[in-house]
């Protein structure tokens, strides 16, 4: 049962994907990738982006075979109902975990940089209620919110770093490709944590008006995300060198400390960046929040997803507060991205694709995808 006014266009999908993917990962990505591949972080992100694009298109292909059904429904046909239910429940949890991780990291960063004496619980609960308020109204407002926030996120972040161009030492990207293939593959794998978010394509397909343009919008979303990450990594590694980058917790924020506006009355731009970054993480949180509740409502066959929006808030709140410290937050994030993300991004689509081909299921008319 899909309401007519809750459909979005392919362009909106593109922006929604971008804003979902760009989230907390941006803070630590340069450090994670430098740790694995040294000076070749940019190439690893390129590799990770291309791999993500491949799997995103695979997920899109699968969904397009069942144009009126979401993941929860069509996997029932592919891999028997009980297994489908189990995987769907994991998917709901998966989205919830990402929303909680994002909101926790958001809380930590905001507490450190802007609100030192505000309890993190307050920051988290405020963010979650804001997200719930938006998510209750469904997909269309969410996509529109992303459309509004997209330029506010991208334009200032791209411009802010330009004054540091003079500090960049291009030799920091040398030697070129002197890492083993295993290391490089590992580096690509850690970038996936930053690309997490395009799994929403599992659920998104029935809600899109002009599905014929969808391939293009998925391409542009993932490529622009990749370029955005490469842009930031270029500045970080170009200024600090990989040896220092890999030791930093949030090289993105350390980079901001190095920005020096010549002839400008603002000396520290941290405040501005924190404001922008709040939008970045907000877009990721509401997206994961929405798709978690959507998957749940499909699973329980309720008419509206909004029944679950508010009950999800305390769950995400409690989950966000499970890790003791920022160290454990990143440990859990590592587990989730290593096991669950790899499963949902890579293993599951390949499996489903093989089963689809073997069983010859799906809508034959959509063969053109």
């Amino acid at each position, binding site marked *: 049962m899909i309401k007519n006014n809750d459909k979005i266009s392919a362009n909106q999908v593109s922006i929604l994907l971008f804003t979902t993917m760009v989230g907390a990962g941006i803070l630590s990505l340069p450090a994670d990738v430098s740790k694995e591949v040294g000076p070749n972080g940019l190439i690893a992100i390129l590799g990770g982006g291309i791999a993500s694009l491949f799997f995103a298109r695979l997920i899109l292909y699968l969904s397009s075979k069942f144009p009126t059904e979401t993941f929860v429904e069509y996997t029932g046909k592919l891999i028997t109902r009980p297994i489908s239910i189990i995987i769907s429940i994991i998917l709901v949890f998966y989205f919830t975990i990402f929303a909680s991780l994002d909101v926790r990291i958001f809380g930590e960063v905001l507490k450190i940089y802007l609100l030192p004496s505000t309890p993190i619980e307050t920051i988290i609960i405020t963010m979650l209620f804001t997200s719930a308020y938006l998510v209750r109204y469904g997909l269309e407002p969410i996509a529109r919110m992303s459309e509004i926030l997209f330029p506010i996120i991208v334009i200032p972040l791209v411009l802010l770093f330009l004054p540091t161009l003079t500090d960049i030492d291009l030799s920091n990207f040398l030697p070129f490709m002197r890492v083993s293939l295993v290391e490089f593959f590992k580096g690509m794998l850690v970038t996936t944590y930053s690309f997490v978010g395009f799994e929403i394509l599992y659920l998104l397909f029935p809600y899109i008006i002009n599905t014929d343009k969808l391939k293009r919008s998925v391409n542009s979303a993932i490529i622009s995300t990749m370029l955005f990450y490469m842009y930031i990594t270029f500045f970080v590694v170009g200024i600090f060198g990989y040896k220092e980058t890999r030791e930093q917790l949030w090289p993105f924020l350390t980079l901001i400390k*190095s920005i020096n506006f010549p002839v400008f009355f603002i000396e520290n731009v941290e405040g501005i960046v924190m404001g922008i970054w709040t939008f970045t993480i907000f877009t990721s949180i509401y997206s994961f929040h929405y798709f978690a509740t959507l998957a749940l409502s499909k699973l329980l066959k309720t008419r509206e997803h909004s029944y679950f929006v508010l009950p999800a808030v305390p769950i995400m709140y409690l989950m966000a507060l499970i890790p003791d410290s920022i160290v454990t937050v990143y440990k859990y994030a590592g587990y989730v991205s290593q096991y669950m993300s790899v499963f949902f991004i890579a293993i599951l689509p390949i499996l489903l694709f093989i089963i689809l081909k073997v069983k010859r299921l799906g809508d034959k008319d959509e063969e053109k995808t």
Partner: protein
Amino acid sequence: MKRKLKIVILWVLIALMLTGCWDKIEIEDRAFVMAIGIDLSSSNKRYVVTFQFPNAAQITKGTSGGGGGSEKPSFAVSEVADTIFSASRHISTRINKALYLGHTQAIIFGKDVVENKDKFQQVLDSLDRSYELSRKVYLLVTPQKAQDILLKKYEMEPNTGAYIRDIFKHYNLTSKFPTIDYNKITKSLHETNGNAIIPKIIAGKDEIKIAGSAIIKNYKLAGWMEDDENMGYMWLTGLVKGGDISINMPGDGEEIKVPFNISNVIRRRDVKEENGKIIYRVKLEVEGDITEYTFEKHGEMMKGDLLNVIERKTSDEIKKMTQKAINRFQKELKVDMLGIGDYIEKYHPSLWEKVGKDWDKIFPEVEIKVDVTSHVRRIGLFR
């Protein structure tokens, strides 16, 4: 009744929501630290941390006819503590403001801190982990006590932090000190495992002076570099962006000094391996102008090969400087701070795989060749 209840609830909500955040600190309650000095106490066990901050109250009053002449323009307070962080906290028992480090311009290390490896590492880590400190601060080492520099008031600019920052701004007039900021120093410490060059600062009676540099080897002060040696180091690492060199030229009877004003430097590097010996070649192309010679020689600049002589002598002078720096690092300290290892690692990775592991042993054996070509581009307004 229901309506009234709604209004009451709305009132309460507005009161709760609009009272703003509880993190606010009014600007006049903050002390914007401009410079930090770090020393060790006499027993070398605890830190003496000095914070210098301008008097915000006086600044807000404005410069209305020198009315606030009796007020101090800047404050400096020292605190003894076990760690740098606790010093920044314990100091609040003595001042009526909240310290804010986000605008700090300079951090000065006393000699005793850089001489003590453990303490120095602790200080560096404290700076790296700080949420507030900007990465644009300048780190400096002083052979005196940092406290001595910060507790003084300088008439030229009572705000010492701003004073230091402004000196760094016109670095390209002299090339007397390496323009290395915090970002570059930590990068160097991370990449070479504890080696770095930090500019040196000393306080005179009524002014400060930044010149020369301190050599940090393995997180410990290994020595100082002055004048020629320091500039030689700057030539080799490509830090020279301006400044002048004096060369001896024949004058009327005795030799006179002629300044060569550097306007542009191009540095090229190359590494070769011959018979198991590494040859590192630095090519410097220096452009500049002659700004004084002697009155008697008017009209001679255009004649003969006077310019060639000046160019050759300049090149020799630069070569001598670099030789001094090479001797210091290669023969005396045996530590690679000339960026040779870094260069090989980046541009000749296959060679680095062979020599990288025991670079410390190989570095003193490396043959460093410096070629300098100078060009006089301008001669002033007289021929």
